[in-house]
């Protein structure tokens, strides 16, 4: 049984059917990436998993349990936490308070304290700026904070939406190195990316979304060598 199973979901973004029957699975310990162009339905898929958007059709199972009807905060309680697109950190809360919000549902004070140290070890720059307001951070630091904040929930599955967006190449590489490190420490990751090249370089498996549907899936290796993908997403001229 897969950890996360998305079964034929149809979801609307406003009045547009942005996801038209997406199915995917994520196994324990994997990095799975969802790639595709702008408007392919990647973010809507993630938000449907997180419960922010309710699908018109289809089901989402976490270790076999149907989580489709649950409100977002209960889905977080079951172990799925998201670092949303555009970082969406709380600009008027301090760095430390942002991280505390990630751990909102946790009651184990010692564990939270240890995870806080862990996040600060992953992102030393956040430790330096812990009492600064979130809004004063640079784009890269905000992305680190968004990932750190989601980690504070100690999720079984971490959903990352476009972590490379708007960052300089050097920072992108840094962020992806840390994503791989988080995975190596035991967190399963579902990664949405427009930067297909970077995403495929760290993922185990990939799904390619187009017009709200999965048009291709397989191991990252297979997808990388698919001529269609090379042309459309990896910027190769054939």
């Amino acid at each position, binding site marked *: 049984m897969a950890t996360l199973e998305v079964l034929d979901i149809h979801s609307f973004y406003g009045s547009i059917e942005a996801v038209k029957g997406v199915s995917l699975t994520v196994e324990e310990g994997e990095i799975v990436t969802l790639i595709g162009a702008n408007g392919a339905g990647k973010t809507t898929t993630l938000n449907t998993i*997180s*419960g*922010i958007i309710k699908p018109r059709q289809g089901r989402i199972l976490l270790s076999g349990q149907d989580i489709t009807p649950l*409100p*977002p*905060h209960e889905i*977080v*309680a079951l172990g799925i*936490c*998201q670092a*949303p697109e555009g970082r*969406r950190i*709380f*600009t*008027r*809360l301090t760095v430390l*308070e942002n991280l*505390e*919000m*990630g751990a*909102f*549902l946790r009651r184990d004070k010692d564990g939270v304290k240890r995870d806080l140290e862990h996040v600060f070890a992953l992102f030393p720059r956040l430790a330096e700026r812990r009492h600064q307001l979130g809004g004063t951070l640079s784009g890269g630091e905000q992305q680190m904070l968004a990932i750190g*904040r989601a980690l504070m*929930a100690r999720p079984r599955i971490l959903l990352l939406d476009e972590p490379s967006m708007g960052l300089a190449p050097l920072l992108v590489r840094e962020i992806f190195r840390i994503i791989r490190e988080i995975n190596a420490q035991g967190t399963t990751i579902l990664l949405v990316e427009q930067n297909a090249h970077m995403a495929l370089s760290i993922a185990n498996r990939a799904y390619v979304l187009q017009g709200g549907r999965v048009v291709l899936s397989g191991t990252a290796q297979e997808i990388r060598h698919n001529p269609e993908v090379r042309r459309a997403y990896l910027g190769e001229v054939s």
Partner: protein
Amino acid sequence: MRKRAPLDLTRSVITAIGVTLLAYVCLRAALTVVRGSYSATTYASQLIFGLAQGGIYALVALGYTLVYGILFMINFAHGEIFMGGTYVGYFVIDACARSGLLAQKPGLALILTAITAMATSVTMAVLLERVAYRPLRRAPRLVPLITAIGASLFYQYSFRGLFGTTVKVYPDVSLHVGRIDLISGRYSIGSLTVRPVYFVVFGMAVVLMAGLYILIQRTKLGKAMRAVAEDKDTAALMGIDVDKVIVATFALGAALAGAAGVMYALYNKQVTHTMGFIPGIKAFTAAVLGGIGNIPGAMLGGLVLGVVEATFPTLLGMDVQLKDVLAFGVLVLVLIFRPTGILGEVLSRKRA
């Protein structure tokens, strides 16, 4: 550049009017002071009363500002939340007076009254949120506003229907500390008559505001409230139950209004089903004056409005009856010259 000309013109005309008004106010005030029409003690006693009244406005204003900060709506039924608490508080303190508890243990009776008033206000506000506002959360902004006015009338006429139109009067309370009666006493210091109740009310208001501020800044609920105010979807993604936080916000504002109602009734003893209207609008004015959505702003706005209302009629040589005109004049002026209020941020920046 040319396109902006009409706007610049309007702007400068408005500024000219504003400066003229301000100059007029200053001149009148200066004249009154120089002429010495009123003694320093007059101003002192007005200032003391203004601070107490301002404390009440500030506590009620916090209810408007807390809700606005989270839902971007004006809860115009908040004045009725204030009225409901005060009204039900009356029944408790009246029963205490009849049973003799008020005479024997006035402190206990007052605490009982305050707790009942706060509980009533909280219940009314939570019901209001659940029935009238939650279903409309995704409706256009005008819809909950109209609903709020409807809810306000609903509460007013419910109290009228249940308890009639006769004016209820809070009984006199004597709460002695040493030889000073904190609530009903009047003492002369030179030519100044001092009522300790105003100090008590102001002090209580400051304590409650400090408590609220610590709650918002330090506690988990306070941080969650700030997170929800900034971004509801992301707060939900962090595991925060947004609906619960919104209910807590309404409850918190209502508890302050209920407490303010009892404090208000200690020196303004008459209770009716319409008593929430004017203080409600004044507190709304205070919230706008300080910057709607801004918590320290509501506190400051309340105190400023209370003091302005108490001292300006004398300073400007106006009839005291015109103090309401003055208060709402302040509202209009703020909306024209500084719509973001004293401590307010630019709304567009806040929403971004």
